[in-house]
C-alpha cells in the first residue's frame, strides 16, 4: 500500500511552515518527498484558509491523477489538480482571444509540415539545413523545425532580424544552420503562425502562444476563476514562459517543487526569468531520500555519478542515502525479446505471490512494448492497468504499465525497469540539432528516474544487445539472477 517516509528533516519542517507570502521553491532529489511537502503545504493552506482555492499544476496528466489520488487518500478532496495546458486553455477561453483549440504534439507537427511544404513550393530560394540521411528524413526535419520554432517563440524573438542575428546556444554541432537556412526557418515560422491564426483545419493555439497570450490578456481573465494558492510539481519540466504564466495567475501564493536531476526534456530556464522571486531562505534543498531503500538508492546514485555533465552542474547535490534496509536490486539478462517478456511475467508473479496488495510498476520505452506486456499478463489473470490510456488508479494494487517518461513523480512498491537494450535506452541517436553529450545525459537521467520509482524492490531487465548503461551499474550493488 501507499507508504512514504515518517519523520521530517529540519529542512522539510521549515518549508511547510513558511507563511504563504511570496514564492517558495522546494528542490530535492527523487524520493526526497517533494510531492509530500507540496501536499502537506496544501493541507496546511486549506486548514488555515478554508475559503481559499488550492490548485496543483503538473506537466502531464498521469502526475495530475496521481496527486489527486494521494490528496484523496489524505482527505483533501477539495484540492484541484490540472495539467498546465488544461488550466491555461480554460483561462484563455474566458478572454476574447478567438482561437483556443490546443495544437500540441502530432497536430502541431502537421501544421509545421504543411507550412514547410508551402514555403518549399512557393519560395525558390528556400534552403534547409542538412539533416543526416535516413529513412525518416522528413520526420527528422520536422522535429528539428519544431524544436527551433519552439526555441524562437519560447525566447520571445518576434522579428526576423532578431532571429538572423541572435547567437543560438544550446544546439548540437551535427546540424549546421547558415544565414540562408535561418531565412527559410523564419519563413516557415511566419507561415506556421498564419495557419494557426486562420486556417480552417489548423486554426488553434500552440503551447508557446498559450502562455504568451494568457500573460498578455491577464486583465481579461475573471478573477473568480483563479486559485489563491498554486502548487507546481516537477517544475523542471516547464518552460520559462509557462512558469511565468503560472506565477502571473497565482493570487496569493506559489509553491514550486523541482529537481534538476530529473530534467529529461530539453529545457533551460532560471527562476528569475520566469518571474519567480525566491528570496533568501525561501529555497530549500532536500537531500535525503525517503522513498526507497539504501540498496536501491546506492545503485542509482552510483550510476548517475558516472556522468560528469551531471555531477559538474552547479546545482548538483550528492543525494544522501536512506537508512532503510532492503533487498539488493536484481538484474536479469535475456537473449531474446520473448525471454524479456517471460522474465517480466516471472517477476510479476513472484511479487503477486508474496504481496498481492502492493503496487508494481513495469516501465518500458514505448506504448507498443507495454501493450505486449499487457496481453501476456492478462492471459495469466494479472490485473493490469495501462496508466496513460486508462487514466488509471496508481495507488491501488496491481501491475501499472508506464513509459520511462511518464514514470516521473510516481512511485511503486516494486519496479521492473525493462528494455535495457542498445537503441532503446539510450535511444538510437539524438534528434538533429541536439547536443550528443546532453542527449546522453538526459537518457541517463531517464533511467535514473525509472530506477528511483521503487520503494521496496527493483528489478532491471536487459536484453541483447545489452544497453551501454548496464556496464555503468556497479557490480557491488546488484545481483544477477536467471
Amino acid at each position, binding site marked *: 500500500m501507499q507508504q512514504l517516509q515518517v519523520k521530517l528533516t529540519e529542512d522539510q519542517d521549515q518549508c511547510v511552515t513558511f507563511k504563504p507570502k511570496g514564492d517558495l521553491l522546494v528542490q530535492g532529489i527523487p524520493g526526497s518527498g517533494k510531492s509530500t511537502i507540496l501536499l502537506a503545504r496544501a493541507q496546511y493552506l486549506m486548514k488555515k484558509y478554508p475559503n481559499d482555492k488550492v490548485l496543483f499544476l503538473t506537466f502531464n496528466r498521469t502526475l495530475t491523477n496521481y496527486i489527486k489520488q494521494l490528496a484523496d487518500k489524505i482527505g483533501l478532496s477539495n484540492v484541484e489538480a490540472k495539467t498546465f495546458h488544461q488550466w491555461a486553455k480554460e483561462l484563455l477561453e474566458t478572454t476574447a482571444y*478567438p482561437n483556443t483549440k490546443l495544437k500540441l504534439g502530432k497536430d502541431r507537427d502537421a501544421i509545421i509540415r504543411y507550412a514547410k511544404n508551402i514555403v518549399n513550393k512557393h519560395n525558390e530560394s528556400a534552403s534547409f539545413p542538412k539533416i543526416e540521411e535516413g529513412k525518416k528524413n522528413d520526420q527528422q526535419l520536422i522535429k528539428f523545425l519544431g524544436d527551433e520554432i519552439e526555441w524562437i517563440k519560447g525566447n520571445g524573438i518576434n522579428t526576423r532580424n532578431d532571429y538572423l542575428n541572435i547567437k543560438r546556444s544550446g544546439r548540437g554541432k551535427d546540424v549546421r544552420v547558415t544565414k540562408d537556412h535561418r531565412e527559410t526557418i523564419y519563413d516557415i515560422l511566419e507561415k506556421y503562425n498564419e495557419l494557426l*491564426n486562420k486556417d480552417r483545419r489548423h486554426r488553434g493555439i500552440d503551447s508557446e502562444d498559450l502562455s504568451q497570450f494568457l500573460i498578455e490578456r491577464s486583465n481579461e481573465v475573471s478573477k473568480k476563476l483563479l486559485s489563491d494558492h498554486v502548487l507546481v510539481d516537477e517544475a523542471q519540466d516547464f518552460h520559462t514562459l509557462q512558469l511565468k504564466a503560472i506565477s502571473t495567475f497565482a493570487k496569493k501564493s506559489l509553491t514550486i517543487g523541482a529537481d534538476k536531476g530529473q530534467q529529461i526534456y530539453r529545457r533551460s530556464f532560471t527562476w528569475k526569468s520566469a518571474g519567480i522571486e525566491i528570496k533568501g531562505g525561501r529555497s530549500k534543498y532536500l537531500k535525503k531520500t525517503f522513498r526507497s531503500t539504501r540498496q536501491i538508492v546506492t545503485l542509482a546514485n552510483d550510476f548517475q555519478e558516472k556522468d560528469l555533465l551531471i555531477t559538474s552542474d552547479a546545482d548538483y547535490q550528492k543525494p544522501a542515502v536512506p537508512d532503510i534496509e*532492503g533487498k539488493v536490486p536484481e538484474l536479469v539478462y535475456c537473449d531474446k525479446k520473448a525471454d524479456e517478456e517471460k522474465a517480466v511475467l516471472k517477476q510479476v508473479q513472484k511479487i503477486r505471490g508474496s504481496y498481492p496488495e502492493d503496487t508494481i510498476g513495469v516501465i518500458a520505452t514505448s506504448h507498443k512494448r507495454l501493450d505486449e506486456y499487457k496481453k501476456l499478463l492478462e492471459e495469466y489473470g494479472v490485473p493490469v492497468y495501462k496508466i496513460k490510456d486508462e487514466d488509471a488508479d496508481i495507488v491501488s494494487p496491481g501491475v501499472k504499465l508506464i513509459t520511462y517518461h511518464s514514470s516521473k513523480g510516481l512511485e511503486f512498491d516494486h519496479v521492473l525497469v525493462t528494455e535495457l537494450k542498445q537503441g532503446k535506452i539510450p535511444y538510437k541517436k539524438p534528434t538533429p540539432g541536439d547536443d550528443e553529450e546532453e542527449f546522453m545525459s538526459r537518457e541517463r537521467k531517464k533511467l535514473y528516474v525509472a530506477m528511483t520509482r521503487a520503494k521496496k524492490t527493483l528489478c532491471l531487465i536487459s536484453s541483447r544487445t545489452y544497453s551501454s548503461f548496464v556496464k555503468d551499474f556497479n557490480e557491488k550493488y546488484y545481483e544477477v539472477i536467471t
Partner: protein
Amino acid sequence: MNKILDKLNDQQLRAVKDTSQFIQINAGPGTGKTTTLGAKMLYTQVELEVPVSNMVGISFSRSAKSHLLNKLEEFTDQLGYGGKPPILTFHSLAFRIIKKAIELGDSKFKEYIEHVDTHDLISYQPNLMKDLCKEYKDGESKKHALCEAFNKARQGNLLDGPSLSWKEVKEDEIYHVPTYVFGRLLVNGQDLKEFWKRVDKIERKFRVTDYNGMITEAINILKNKGKTYEYFTNLYDYIFVDEYQDTSLAQEMLLFALISNKQHVTVVGDKNQTIYSFNGSNSYNLDRFFQQATSLYNTEPTKIILNRNYRSPQQILDVTNSLVHEEHYVYSETRTLQQPVVVETHNYQLASHYISTEIEKLINQEKVTPSNICILYRKNSEHSPQADTVKEHLNQLEIEYTEEVSNRKTEKSLSQKVLSLQEQNQGEDLEDIIETIEDERTKQFVKECMSDGATDSEDLLEYLVELEEIEESFTPTQKEAVHIRTVHSAKGLEFPYVFIIYLGDKEFPHSSKPDIEEERRLLYVGLSRAQKQLYIIGKKGLHFESFLDHCLLTDVKHIPYHTFMEEKFSSGFSNKDKKAIDRTGNKQTSIIDEMEDLQGLFND
C-alpha cells in the same frame, strides 16, 4: 369511466379529478405519468364535457407523443367511447399558429413557409456572413459561431431569456459559444445583430425559416394579441403539456403567450429528469411554471406529486433516490431478493467482458428473453467507443443486439420523401394517395398522420415539422435481441434488465468540463429504467464527482472486476528475500500517518 379510474391510486386520481385552472403534476419515473395524463384527458372529455377539439396536448417528442396516443387508444378501446385530442409538439404547434396567422394576415410571412436547418439558411444567400466574425477566416467556424449564437439567443440561453428580435442583442457584448467540433468560439454583439437582420430579410424574401425561427415567429404573432391570438385562446380551453422539464425557455414563452386567464393548463414533469438543458431547458422549469402562473393570473397552481413507483423494486429506487437532491423521492411497494450490482473495473474491455458474459448467463441459464435486456451508454459524440467495445464482445459470444439507426439522417430522408409526396399531390385527399405510396416508411408515416387526424396532403406539412425534433428517434425493431441505446434515447422506456456503462471521469460525467447536475440527472434517468435488475459498470471518479462511489453508498453488491480470468499465482519470494522486503515495509509508513505527523508542525 370508472373502469379506468378504479385502477388509479389516490394520488393519480386526485390529479385526474382536480379541476383547478393551473395544475402542476410532479411525476417521478415509473409513477404512471402517461396513464394519469391519458386518464385526465379522457376525464375532461367525459366528465367535464369538453370536446376534444377544444383540447390540445403538447408533447416533447414524437416518441413521447406516440406513447400518449397509444395510452389513449387503450383507454378508449376499453371504454368503447371517447376520442383523441390533437397531440402536438411545440414545433407543430408553432407551425399551426403561423399557418393560421398567414391566413388571418397576422404573420410577417405572406404564404406557406419552408423550414430548414439554421445552417442551410446560408444556401439562400451566400453573402449572409460577409464581413461578419472577422476573427475567423474560414467559413465553417464563422457559420458555427453565428448559427450557434443565433440559436442560443432565441432559445433563451445566451441573453437574459429568449430574444424575439435582433433589437435585444447588445452591440458591445462579446458572446462565448461552446461548440463540439470547433471548441469555444466568439461572436461579438454587432455581428450577431447584423446576422439576425440579414436572416430576417432572407426569411421574408424566400419564405423560409428555421426551427427556432418558427417558435419565435409564433410567439411574436401571439404577443400581438390579434385575430390569431383570439382564435387560439378560444380554440384551446384545455392545454396539457407533457415532459415539461425539457421545455426550452422559448417554448415556455410560447405556452404563456398562448394562454389567457380563462384557459386550463396542466403541466406534467419531473425536474430530476431534465436532460436537454443544452437545448435551452433547465431543471427549474416546473418551479418557474408555478411562479409565472401565480404572478400572471393570481392563481396558485395546484401541485400534485406522484411518487409511488410501479416499475422498480425498492432496492433499485434506493440507488436512484441517492442521486436526487431533494423533493419527491419515489418509493415502491415491491422488494426483491437481488441487490443491484455495481461492477468496478478499469477499462472498456473489462466492462464489456463482464456485460457480455453476464448477458450470456442471463439468456442461457436464466432463460431471460434478450429483448428484456438493455445496455445504456452515455454517448459522447457520433462515435461511441464504449458501445463499440460492447458490441464486439457481444459478437464474440454470438449474442444478437439491435443496432441503433442513425437517427437524424433517416428522419431527414423520410422528411424529404414526404415533402415530395406532398408537392406531387397538392390538395389531394390522403385516402386517395395512401395506396400509391411505395416506400414503406413513408406509407407508415402517412398512416400515423391519418390516424392522428390528417386528411389531405397539406396536413402532412405539420407532421413533418415534428420529424425534425431534437430527440434521438429510435426505430422499434421486432427482432428478438438485446437493446443497446443511449441514455438520452431511453427516456420514457423501461426494461427488466438494465446495464449502464461507463461511469468515471470524462465518460459519465461526460467531457472535461461536465455539467455535473445535468449528468447526475441523466444517470438518474438511465438507472430508473430498470424493472428487475440493475447493473452499474465503471470506475471511480477522481477529478469530478464519483458517481460510482455514490452508488456504492446504498445497499448494492460491489463486484471488483479487474481481470478477464482467475489469476495464477506463483509461490513468491524466497524466505530470505521476503524477510528483507518485510523489513523495508515495516520501516515505511503510510502517507496518512505521515501527513498526520506533519500537522503538528503547523501550530503557529
